[in-house]
């Protein structure tokens, strides 16, 4: 299959510090990646770059072979359904749900009325009804709970009909009911096989080889290992990655379980 996104020697330097260094990654169309890493390992930085929300300082990043910097970055943002609480919480506070959801259609952070039709507004209202948030249309982003924010960001991404779904720690901070719903949503996307999917998590309990086919391990802003899910997520590789002896098992439902060896 053809690569949809290719990163070569990708890096991001802020002052003297490298947030990301020498990342080489090829993402094939319709592939489903899990990205694992500790806090501060550069996962969100990497995904926000791939989604066109942050710039890189080193290396090369291409979309279907064409350099990101030579393309309409707003078009790339529309193609990348970037769902990241940790990124958008830094930007959105007092903006209304309606504005930020509709802004996804233009790939901008603020509203661009010129590309919004009445069909889009109707679709947004229908989607809000489906997740029970129809009365939150005029609410500020900061008024919403973690789960509601996550849902709004998903709607924002879906409205633009993206080619790639980028889910950055989608289960973090959710209660058990919301987690269950989110798991179903992720499974739905994975089963459809219509989108390329990039899924960031800390938790092995969210990973199943039935849902994902590739895995990228990140440590200190660099790629530690990448490959097929079962080649990467096993006791030996993960023990080396975490620098602690661990045991990886599969649970009845197919998801992984990690336990530390005493």
């Amino acid at each position, binding site marked *: 299959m053809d690569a949809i996104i290719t990163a070569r020697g990708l890096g991001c330097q802020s002052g003297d510090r490298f947030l990301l260094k020498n990342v080489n990654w090829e993402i094939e169309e319709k592939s489903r990646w899990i990205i694992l890493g500790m806090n501060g390992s550069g996962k969100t930085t990497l995904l926000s770059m791939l989604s066109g929300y942050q710039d890189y300082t080193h290396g090369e990043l291409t979309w279907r072979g064409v350099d990101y910097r030579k393309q309409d970055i707003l078009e790339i943002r529309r193609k990348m359904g970037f769902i990241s609480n940790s990124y958008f919480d830094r930007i959105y506070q007092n*903006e209304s749900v309606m504005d930020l959801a509709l802004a996804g259609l233009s790939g901008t952070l603020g509203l661009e009325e010129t590309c919004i039709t009445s069909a889009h507004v109707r679709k947004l209202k229908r989607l809000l009804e489906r997740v029970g948030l129809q009365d939150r249309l005029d609410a500020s982003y900061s008024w919403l709970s973690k789960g509601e924010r996550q849902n709004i960001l998903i709607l924002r991404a879906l409205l633009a009909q993206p080619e790639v779904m980028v889910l950055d720690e989608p289960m973090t901070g959710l209660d058990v009911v919301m987690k269950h719903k989110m798991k179903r949503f992720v499974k739905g996307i994975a089963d459809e096989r219509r989108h390329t999917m990039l899924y960031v998590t800390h938790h092995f309990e969210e990973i199943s080889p039935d849902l994902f086919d590739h895995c990228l391990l990140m440590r200190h802003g660099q790629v530690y290992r990448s490959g097929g899910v079962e080649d990467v997520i096993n006791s030996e590789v993960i023990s080396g990655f975490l620098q602690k002896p661990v045991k990886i098992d599969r649970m009845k439902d197919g998801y992984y379980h990690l336990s530390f060896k005493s």
Partner: protein
Amino acid sequence: MANEKSLRVERLKQRAKYCCCRYCGSELHVRQIVFHTQAMARIELYCDQCQKIEYGVEKEAYASAKAFVEANQFNHFPDMEDNEQRLQMNVAKVCNITSWQLRYLGLTNETGMAVPVHINEYAMEQCTTVEEDRLEQLLEEADQWMQSLQQED
């Protein structure tokens, strides 16, 4: 690409001149929100007062929406406490309706109002200072109006 980039930024700069915040009516500013080499990817309109990315509405539409909300005690958010925030949200709601209608009717375009606007200050419940000449003129008009009524009788 370069043209597209500058077009969007230029459009936002223009919009900041003829639009104001839908919530508080303050001036909008062109701001860099995120770090990016491409200007069109990092620049948005921003309201400093509300501290939010804000697309804005034509100033005339804002004035009209605010007057409507205040005169009619319009309230789209009955569950909210009666405070400044609710007032602002109601004004913004009416701004959205008004700007939709203005655009639909072709009365606004990318440079703001597409037609000359004559705001009726009396209807808008604003205090106005009437100069002496204008006062005499108004009294004359009132006299004429009274005479016309008497003639009709």
